[in-house]
């Protein structure tokens, strides 16, 4: 492989070195811009990102078709579906639009949460591979192969606004990877593999005698690192000291009982926490209850969680399971949103983002299932964004189509909607610098006056 020749600048500095310098300056400027945003202290946003694992069928959810007619490129597969999913829901009003939502979103409509929705349809995921698409929908920035690029959307939203002293776990991620390359270390997610790992974090271990604990604390506070000052770079010992202070605060407040779900009658009733659900930390209702408690208690500002699994229905499990599993997930989401509305009735400072890594094919395959499809949809409930539907797929084929940037309606010569557009719009609506997405936010939809 031949090496590329680097053309020399007249001053003897290579163009490649100049480029690297400009990029470094750009990085520094971006951090400076972000710091300026912090200086303005936008209002913190309560953010929940709920992810359906495996690729959902948007025809049953966010991008349905009318079952009374036929489509040249879409198999509705009505006969294969369980009975609850064979009938259309009545169109509902979202913003100024009359919107058809799929039967899996029945709980959202029944709880009258649809007026708070912004639905993005026809998002080009540009991949039908699980790991690539999962990374893409995590950060809303095109991945490098399967590796996520940039920070998770949950990390970005966690960084909005000043940090209150009670915010000891600003960013929590349950069963979903989280990344932080753009924001201060304090906003790196506390990762857990399961929702039932939150409570042990908040339970104080068995204590020694009072005098021993007092002396131990005094010794810990008095002892200093001997090695850190000899190395360059960030002082991790200072970060550890801050974490220790936050941990003590967390344990002193005895927040663990907030996550003793079975003992909380309100939660049991609100989320339908039966004994079977309480034994299953992956159940959507369990996950939703934990996420809601983290947000409502002020412990966390951003929670990302896998709300449902088993969406990858390639075989005849599509008819049996896709609809019911989506419904169960959306039901838990409806309960969570209704819960969060108690503190924020109009959801102006609450954003609930609902995603899956891609959609499923409009055609049913030879196994009575659906395969992977790149024309995805994303749902947002709450926040300042304009309410309604932005984007569309071709009515007959579920394919991508060009969209008018302002109206969100199909328009020849318009834009193709990408996750970057959606991420930038969500970020801008929350007062964040959206330049990291390298796409302009959909200005008419951010809900923010420029």
């Amino acid at each position: 492989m031949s090496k590329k020749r680097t053309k020399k600048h007249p001053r003897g500095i290579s163009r490649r070195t100049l480029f690297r310098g400009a990029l470094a300056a750009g990085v520094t400027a971006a951090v400076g811009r972000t710091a300026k945003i912090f200086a303005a202290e936008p209002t913190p946003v309560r953010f929940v990102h709920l992810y359906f694992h495996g690729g959902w069928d948007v025809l049953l959810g966010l991008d349905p078709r009318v079952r009374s007619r036929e489509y040249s490129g879409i198999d509705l597969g009505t006969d294969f579906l369980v009975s609850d999913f064979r009938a259309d829901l009545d169109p509902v009003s979202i913003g100024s639009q009359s919107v058809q939502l799929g039967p899996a979103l029945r709980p959202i409509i029944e709880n009258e949460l649809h007026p708070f929705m912004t639905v993005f349809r026809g998002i080009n995921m540009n991949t039908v591979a699980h790991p690539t698409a999962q990374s893409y929908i995590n950060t809303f920035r095109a991945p490098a192969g399967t590796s996520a690029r940039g920070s998770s959307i949950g990390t970005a939203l966690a960084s909005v606004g000043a940090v209150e002293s009670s915010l000891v776990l600003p960013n929590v991620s349950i069963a979903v990877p989280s990344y932080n390359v753009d924001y201060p270390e304090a906003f790196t997610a506390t990762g857990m593999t399961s929702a039932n790992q939150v409570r042990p974090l908040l339970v104080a271990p068995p204590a020694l005698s009072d005098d021993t604990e007092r002396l131990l604390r005094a010794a810990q506070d008095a002892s200093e690192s001997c090695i850190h000052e000899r190395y360059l770079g960030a002082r991790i010992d200072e970060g550890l000291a801050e974490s220790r202070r936050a941990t003590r605060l967390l344990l002193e407040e005895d927040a663990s009982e907030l996550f003793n779900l079975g003992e909380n009658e309100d939660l049991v009733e609100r989320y339908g926490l039966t004994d079977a659900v309480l034994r299953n930390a992956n159940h959507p209702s369990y996950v939703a209850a934990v996420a809601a408690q983290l947000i409502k208690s002020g412990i966390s500002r951003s929670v990302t969680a896998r709300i449902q699994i088993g969406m990858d229905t390639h075989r005849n499990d599509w008819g049996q399971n896709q609809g019911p599993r989506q419904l169960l997930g959306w039901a838990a989401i409806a309960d969570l949103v209704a819960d969060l509305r108690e503190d924020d009735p109009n959801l102006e400072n609450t954003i609930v983002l609902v995603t899956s890594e891609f959609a499923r094919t409009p055609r049913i395959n030879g196994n009575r299932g659906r395969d992977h499809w790149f024309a995805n949809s994303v749902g947002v409930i709450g926040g300042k964004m304009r309410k309604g539907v932005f984007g569309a797929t071709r009515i007959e084929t579920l394919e991508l189509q060009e969209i008018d940037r302002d109206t969100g309606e199909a328009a020849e010569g318009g834009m193709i909607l990408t996750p970057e557009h959606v991420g930038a719009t969500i970020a801008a609506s929350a007062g964040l610098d959206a330049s990291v997405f390298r796409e302009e936010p959909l200005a008419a939809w951010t809900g923010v006056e420029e």
Partner: protein
Amino acid sequence: MSVKTHPRDAELRMRKRKWLMGAGSAILLLMGACEGSIDSGDPGPRVDGPAPNVPGTLPPRSTDPIAPGDIEPGRSVRRMTADQFVNSLEVATGQRWSDFDRFAGALGRADLQQVTEEGRAPNVTFDKLVGDAARATCADAIEADLEAEDRTSRRIVHEVEFSERAPEALATNIQYLLLRFLGLPEVPVEDERVQTWLPLVTEGTAEFTDAEMAERWEAVCIGLATHPDFVTY
């Protein structure tokens, strides 16, 4: 009589000349490295933007445009990974934390499916779980020490008996623990690194039972297992 040279001989001589020049250059470079002119090990001043390239030396380290802007050149302290921590704790205390598999993900261990990088953030989760692990293993270690047949087989209370109350003697075990946990050899008794932990085993312990004294040693163990110099490197 003139000797005709074959054209291939000239080619071979040219190749040999080039090889010698290359080898000579390499030797010169190596000599420079031994003498430190290439890279003295000193990371050098941080340079932003374009840097002039001085022939015969590597350019000064400049800000890597790919990595986050706040990474300094040279070695920086890092937090242990989840596996490093639990293994180090086992070496130091002789006890394995039984809840590690349950909380390894929360400590940052990569599952190599969705998470491919080890987490090293010094966050609240890390502090809480390190504390839990330290308390669990130190409790087990002290219990093992109490049951040990002789002092030499103990991990924590190794230099003294549980009945010891004299501060000078107790300090020797503190020195031993500083070596065991933090790798600090021969720390003088009057050093603040010993004096910081000594009150835990001297304050109010004159009338203590061995069991009460064991709790104090357990606390010293916990304190050192959660020390920033133990969990970082």
